């Protein structure tokens, strides 16, 4: 047994060294600060490998943890993953149940990790759609890690960008309405003209109420399974984001594909940085 595991250990060590060397070369150029990923292809992966559907989602979760590790090694501060869309509630109840139990396990694992590593965990989406247990777990984890800033992991759950925009508009309307009522109730006639400007909703008001307001806009958005759609994910935040479509399923995402995506980003970095400055 010892002689069988030794070559494997050496192989794994060599792989790790090569990866670290490649990452070190990558870091010689401009690096993204925020990577977003659509975790597409878990079910296809399970079907192709003759696994049950739940195993595909397990493999996807494992791939996400590896991705977070690689981003940590590369010094990428923000990672956002599209774990569960509001539309996904239409899937089979067994599959939805499996994803929810996976979310529960992932929260438990993240809770253990964050005890030793300064990882901030943020859940973006309409958390009211989750069960009370998951919602409370998510809120506790967010509160416990709110002060960490070395790496920020955002899990988009019960999320749709159109829902995010609508929610943000609602919050802005309510804020202005109650502000307007307060000023009207305690108003000074001379201040009316000044207050009219403050009662108009601006883009700044909309953006501060977004679920994703804690993170900057992504530099790269990766979608797997060779899809070329955003599927209602971060289309508000990705005006100047490099969109990368990979012809593999998400559980197969590894450090080499990540390297390729970052090299592509570095190729276009001057252009994207110029466009962001021009805004």
């Amino acid at each position, binding site marked *: 047994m010892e002689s069988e595991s030794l070559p494997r250990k050496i192989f794994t060590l060599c792989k790790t060294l090569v990866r670290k060397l490649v990452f*070190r*070369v*990558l*870091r*010689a*150029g401009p690096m993204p600060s925020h990577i977003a990923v659509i975790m597409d292809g878990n079910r296809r992966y399970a079907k192709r490998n003759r696994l049950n559907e739940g195993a595909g989602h397990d493999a996807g979760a494992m791939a996400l943890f590896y991705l977070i590790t690689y981003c940590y090694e590369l010094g990428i501060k923000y990672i956002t993953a599209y774990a569960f869309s509001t539309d996904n509630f*239409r*899937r*089979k109840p067994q599959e939805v149940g499996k994803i929810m139990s996976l979310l529960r396990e992932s929260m438990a694992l993240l809770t253990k990790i964050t005890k030793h590593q300064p990882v901030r965990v943020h859940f973006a989406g309409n958390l009211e759609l989750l069960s009370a247990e998951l919602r409370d777990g998510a809120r506790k984890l967010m509160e416990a890690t709110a002060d960490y800033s070395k790496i920020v992991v955002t899990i988009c759950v019960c999320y*749709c*960008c*159109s829902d995010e*925009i*609508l929610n943000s*508009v*609602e919050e*802005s*309307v*309510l804020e*202005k*309405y109650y502000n*307007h009522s307060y000023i009207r109730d305690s108003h000074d006639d001379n201040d009316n003209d000044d207050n009219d400007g403050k009662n*108009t*909703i*601006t*883009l700044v*008001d*909309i953006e501060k109420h977004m679920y994703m307001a804690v993170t900057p806009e992504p530099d790269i958005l990766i979608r797997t399974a060779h899809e*070329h*759609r*955003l*599927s*209602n994910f971060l*289309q*508000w935040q*990705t*005006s*100047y*984001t*490099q*969109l*990368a479509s990979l012809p593999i399923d998400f559980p197969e995402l590894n450090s080499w594909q990540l390297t390729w995506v970052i*090299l592509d980003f*570095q*190729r*276009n970095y001057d*252009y*994207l940085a110029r*466009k962001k400055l021009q805004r």
Partner: protein
Amino acid sequence: MDFARPKRMLYFWIDKIGNVLFRLSWHLVHAIIYLCYFTMAMLHGLESHLISRGLLRKYKYLHISKINYLAIVIESEEACRTSNVIQLLLWVATLGINHICLYDNEGILKKSKDVILDKFDGAILFQDTHENNMLLDQPCMTLEFVSFSDGKEAVARAANVLLMKYIKSRAAGSNQGEQIFSESEMSEALKTVGSGGPEPDLLLIYGPARCHLGFPAWRIRYTEIQHMGPLKSLKYGSLIKALYRYTTNLQIWYGNKQVKCSAVLPWKTVNLGKSNRTPSIHGDS
């Protein structure tokens, strides 16, 4: 003997030389990638030429009817190339796609809209069509010109419309419940402020990088996005390939079941024939 200072100097120089070596390696990797992309561009150019000549059988038939609304995003620095834009629109119109949205971030295309509209007989502005529902029934070409002010800023203007509506409804004493506004109310508010176009089926990006440059977020939820390269490298064959890729990789959702469909359905097809710039259009009889 004190070795601390020489040791520090050694580590300093190792670090410096290491950084230089890594930087050189980075440049070497990017030089190799540049050569790869250059080679791929040559091959794509050749493929586009063959497609234009009708020599690749696969691209001879396009099921254009699946594209009800096409959006084209153009990098603002290239949007002033009006002749290229007109050429692109001519190709798209000849292929049978009549409803097109043109977007550039800074609104350069909006300034050229009169020049562009003049080139297409009977083309009308999208804003002049009365109802979105009637759009598909319009026999003539409709063009929509969109910029950044129709995206995020339009959502802010729509929010103010909804704010007024909310103030009135509260003054009238109605109780909104948990959710104040629905998606349809948001869409209506966007229409009120003049930014209520339909969701495109396909979005083609003409620019150096694959990013949508701020196209209205409310309208690209499930839109297929394809990157075409810079506008100055515009090729008819690349356009055909992009449309072919979209129309043949059709995924029909039946509830939770996803079915990949590449069957030939009785839609309007375009026979590209052998001539390269003037395809003929044949309807199904």
